[in-house]
């Protein structure tokens, strides 16, 4: 993840021809590239996409994916939906909260579509299935080693 700069944001907006109807796609790309959306970025997008700041702000606030604070170095999403609940995701989430350092952001996600191999987590964008506490710990170790 790199820092948001006016240039990087412009480049992303232009990839979508700075069309207002592409706002969700622009923001998704920004989050995938930079991890989050800053206040400055919201202001800049309003100008470049010819929208009001309220419009952009509203869309950013509406969608779960559009973080407005900088995430940690690693992002771990743990599925909290029913199929994973049936396989112990509540206990896994409790375990996970104690198993990672402060530089890891843990987020809830409602279904990764991996429901036949539950519980499922997503580590830095990769979906992993059949995760119990031990497997979670080895994922954290692998995540550290890959740093």
């Amino acid at each position, binding site marked *: 993840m790199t820092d948001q700069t006016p240039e990087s944001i412009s480049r992303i907006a232009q990839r979508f021809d700075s*069309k*207002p*109807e*592409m*706002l*969700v*796609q622009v*923001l*998704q790309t920004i*989050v995938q590239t930079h991890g989050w959306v800053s206040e400055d970025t919201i202001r800049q997008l309003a100008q470049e996409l010819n929208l009001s700041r309220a*419009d952009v702000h*509203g*869309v950013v606030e*509406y*969608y*779960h*994916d*559009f973080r407005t604070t900088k995430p940690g170095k690693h992002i771990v999403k743990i599925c909290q*939906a*029913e*199929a*994973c*609940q*049936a*396989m112990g995701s509540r206990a896994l989430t409790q375990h996970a909260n104690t198993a990672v350092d402060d530089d890891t952001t843990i987020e809830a*996600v*409602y*279904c*990764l*579509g*991996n*429901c*036949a*191999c*539950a519980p*499922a987590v*997503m580590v830095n*964008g*990769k*979906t*992993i*299935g*059949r995760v119990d506490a031990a497997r979670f710990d080895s994922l954290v170790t692998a995540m550290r080693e890959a740093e």
Partner: protein
Amino acid sequence: MSAIKIYVPRETTAVSVGADEVALEIARAAKKRGASIQLVRNGSWGACWLEPLVEVEVDGARIAYNNITPEDVPGLFDAGLLEGGDHDKRLGPIIEEKYLITQDRWTFWRCGLIEALSLEDFALHQGFKALRKAWEMGPDAVIDAVTESGLRGRGGAGFPAGIKWRTVADAAGEQKYIACNADEGDSGTFSDRMLMEGDPFGLIEAMAIAGFAVGASKGYIYLRSEYPLTNVILSRAIDMAREAGWLGDDIQGSGFDFDIELHLGAGSYVCGEETAMLESLEGKKGIVRYKPPLPAHEGLFGKPTVVNNVVTLASVPNIINMGGERYASMGVNRSKGTLAFQLAGNIKRGGLVEKSFGITLRELIEEYGGGTASGRPVKAVQVGGPLGAYLPDSQLDTPLDYEAFTEIGAMIGHGGIVVFDDTVDMALQARFAMEFCAIESCGKCTPCRIGSTRGVEVIDRMINDEKRDENYDLLVELCDTMEDASLCAMGGMTPYPVRSVLKHFAEDFASGGRNE
């Protein structure tokens, strides 16, 4: 000697349990041993509990080995993998497994069978045959075939696809759209994803047929962001189809123009609701629209739009190839054809099972699923995602038929079946239904926005055994209000799982439900 084909799925579930690492290890081992192999990345057959599933083609037959880890690979080669040699994990031909051979694979027949990103393999397996036939038939006959098939919307609402297509075809206006709903948010569902990962050209062909039938030159796919691998595969497939002249202007010299734009969602469940999805496709907050006007009249950017789920669309090419009547001959009553059921949660043999309507839940869970993964008794089964009812054992013999499910206060939805064993606390599941609605409500209508939060509070009081009769009555009244007065299914159906818990699992509340 030509290279020996080894199939390793590139599909989210298989990859989530190590398929990429297995593929890498197979390539390494083959190189080390000087064996000439061709790695084929297919989709999944849907037998998820066997993943990673490796198949090797020997004398035209595909011999499968199940649950392969990278550590297994050297031993597999030693055991003669390339000749289909014997091994503890050797299954034999996967298509002869009872799980698969007894299915009615109408929509998913290419999934697992072909290399997902090969136009050549696709063409060898009837790829684009239906689109060519559609051009010969003409738009009206295509819509008639879809109508005759009895195909209903597989996203959950079950609206007849042919009627929707006819409405858009008859609507006035130059610009019309096809919007494919791939925002598969229901827990326990993954059929859209498997189709897109295993047969992406099949969806592209289906959308082109829809476009031709209703007079739309542009299609959108709204794909949820939780499916990053699907995004990679589908994006590549769209590019490949365009390069090969199967998308764009004057497709294959037919005079028909059609192109597809892929959009990503951003983590909002309610964007699976068709009008919220259209708002999101327009770059806005995914807030539900009032209906009417129907999207078929005023949809995307105010233009007539066919909004169909992935599986609905992907069922069409075979309807064109084999005729609507053939599809309608499967299934029961007004539930014609097949549905790709998805066995999920606490289930021994989880995966995708495409069967004709009419099969019972018990048959699916016991005969295909093999019971719970934990080996404990089944306590509850949630069908149709977070807005679907929890069914107790006594209802498992209900045939899977849209109307039969409506009659018992349940729904089939997108065909997700989530199994819970007897350790589940159903009061918590009822609470979660309300909590999920509170998290995901788009906020437009009050019953959903406020009702869901009040619902969590009331259920918390019931769990804590405070004023039990009063709170029970209040919860029932709240469910009535949400059901009657919400704008869409989010608030309108959240009461389904809640009511089902009150009705069938009341003993899980400290109070044991209402004191009568």
